[in-house]
């Protein structure tokens, strides 16, 4: 496991899922060029639980979005499971995302008119599955997050912690290799946050999911295998 900054690409780790080399993201705003991510290199092992920390504007969410394939880099190389994301067209990147990534948002972002079951089912609508296959997978995912008894509840009928569990079930229902979480406990009380972190921990430990989590909370970062600190688009230190 390694994190480097403005350095030569590290030797590929024997079983790394994510390989980032000299990744830069910049865009123009008005007259000025903003570079939220500046020539960053990083590798993440399969099954690793990585926490990204740093102040607001440090580039952690930008990095997360690039890893998740919802944003594209300005330069550099980003490989996830040997797939160079920079080489994919928008349509293929969307398809790749639907198969390989589960995204967990800070504010859950469940569709309010859909039940827990229907929300979790959404990613499966993109897969060539029968209704019964979808049902089985959704029930398994909701069971895994401990919400089998809330299957027909709508988001408004769930607590914040339960909503985030549904969001996690939605992120894992299609069995992606990679889970990305943007401050998944940022909107939860202490007890719910601990329970969500424990759930993420078990997904990494027991189900070999690779997790990249952005957080401001040192207690959340402590649950991860490794924490990286970003400042001004660069990694400033690593802590195991």
């Amino acid at each position, binding site marked *: 496991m390694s994190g480097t900054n403005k350095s030569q690409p590290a030797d590929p780790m024997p079983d790394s899922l994510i390989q980032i080399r000299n990744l830069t993201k910049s865009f123009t705003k008005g007259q000025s060029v903003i570079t939220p991510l500046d020539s960053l290199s990083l590798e993440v092992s399969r099954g690793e639980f990585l926490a990204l920390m740093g102040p607001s504007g440090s580039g952690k969410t930008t990095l997360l979005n690039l890893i*998740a394939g*919802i944003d594209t880099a300005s330069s550099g190389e980003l490989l996830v499971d040997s797939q160079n994301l920079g080489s994919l067209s928008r349509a293929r990147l969307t398809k790749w995302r*639907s*198969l390989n990534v589960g*995204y967990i948002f800070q504010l859950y972002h469940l*569709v309010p008119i859909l039940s827990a079951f229907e929300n979790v089912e959404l990613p499966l609508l993109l897969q060539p599955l029968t209704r019964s296959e979808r049902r089985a997978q959704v029930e398994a995912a909701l069971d895994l997050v401990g919400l089998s008894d809330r299957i027909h509840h709508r988001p408004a009928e769930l607590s914040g912690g339960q909503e985030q569990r549904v969001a996690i079930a*939605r992120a894992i229902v299609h069995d992606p290799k990679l889970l990305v979480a943007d401050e998944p406990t940022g909107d939860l009380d202490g007890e719910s946050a601990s329970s969500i972190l424990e759930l993420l921990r078990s997904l990494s430990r027991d189900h070999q999911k690779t997790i990249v989590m952005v957080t401001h909370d040192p207690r959340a970062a402590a649950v991860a295998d490794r924490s990286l600190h970003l400042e001004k688009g660069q990694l400033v230190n690593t802590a195991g």
Partner: protein
Amino acid sequence: MLSLALKNIFRYRLRSSLTMAGVATGMFLFTTVETMQQSLARVTRSEADDTTLIVYRENRFCPSTSRLPEYYLSSIEKIEGVRRVIPIQIAVNNCGASLDVITFRGVPPENLLKYNPDLEVVDGSFKNWTSRSDAALVGQTFAQRRNLQTGDQFEAVGVNVYVAGIIKSNEAQDNNVAYVHLPFLQQASKVGLGTVTQFNVKVESAELLDAVATKIDTTFRSDSQPTVTRPEKAFFAETAKQMIELIGFTHWLGLGAVAAVLGLVANAVLLIVRGRIKETAVLQTLGFSRFRIACLITCEGLLLGLLGGAVGVVSAILFLHWQSFTLGNEGLTLAITPSITVLFNGLLVALILGFTASLYPAWRASRQPLVESLNTG
């Protein structure tokens, strides 16, 4: 996808209901106009199996001014190709375009069923009609419009009649008139015995229409009352010009209604898109392609158009069916009768409108930048 679109529509019940009510109103107007256009087309468009000619007084358009000697009958009957002729005296309350025209047709009672075997007496009896000189067989639509029943007595155009029966026919004109005895009407309307308004002539085949018409007009060219003979539908088209122009104008109203529906649905779908920027971005994050997002929005537009359209089209058809509107002009009546074609056309137009109106919003939704949209408030 369809289920998600349906749920999204019912998510904002008030907004969707108002949009659908607007669509329904527009499509109600469109269907009414379309029904008028089609009803007019039915009575004016010539068809291959048309075999009826109308003999009218030359240069006359209103029944009150077309006066032909009844004795022309025997001359017309002798013309080769003529199968049957019936002299008709017509009395109307209004020669101009009117929504409530009352038309009496005086015919020889013994000839009515021979000439028009399709007439069906649905209430009362034909015998009852033949046995009373002041009896009338009232068309179903006319009876419904005027709330007439067998046994009633009613007076119009200075003619007082007894309702001997209610009739229905495949010919819309027959459903909108009251058949009375010819001598009775000639006297009651003061034109006098021996004078009729027109002759309806059935010829042996459609190919003979022109030849027979020419022969009839040639026969009476030098007579004191020259004639002009035209196929029934052409006669309608030429005589009821005022009404046709009026209905032609309504075409623009129909187009206006369609444009209003288009704008309404487009606006509603744009509001839907604008209100769900973040949700759309979340779907894209989950892997929904631009095409799927566009399909979802288009589905919502289609459903709004179709559901609102169905309400409007069906209500218009039921309304027109129950109200039995009849437009009259120059003694001719046009029943505004909805048809299954109008129903399907209306639903198809609603579907196309829903689709067209949602194209731009769907394009907008599918093109919104993902990361920025996730960060919207």
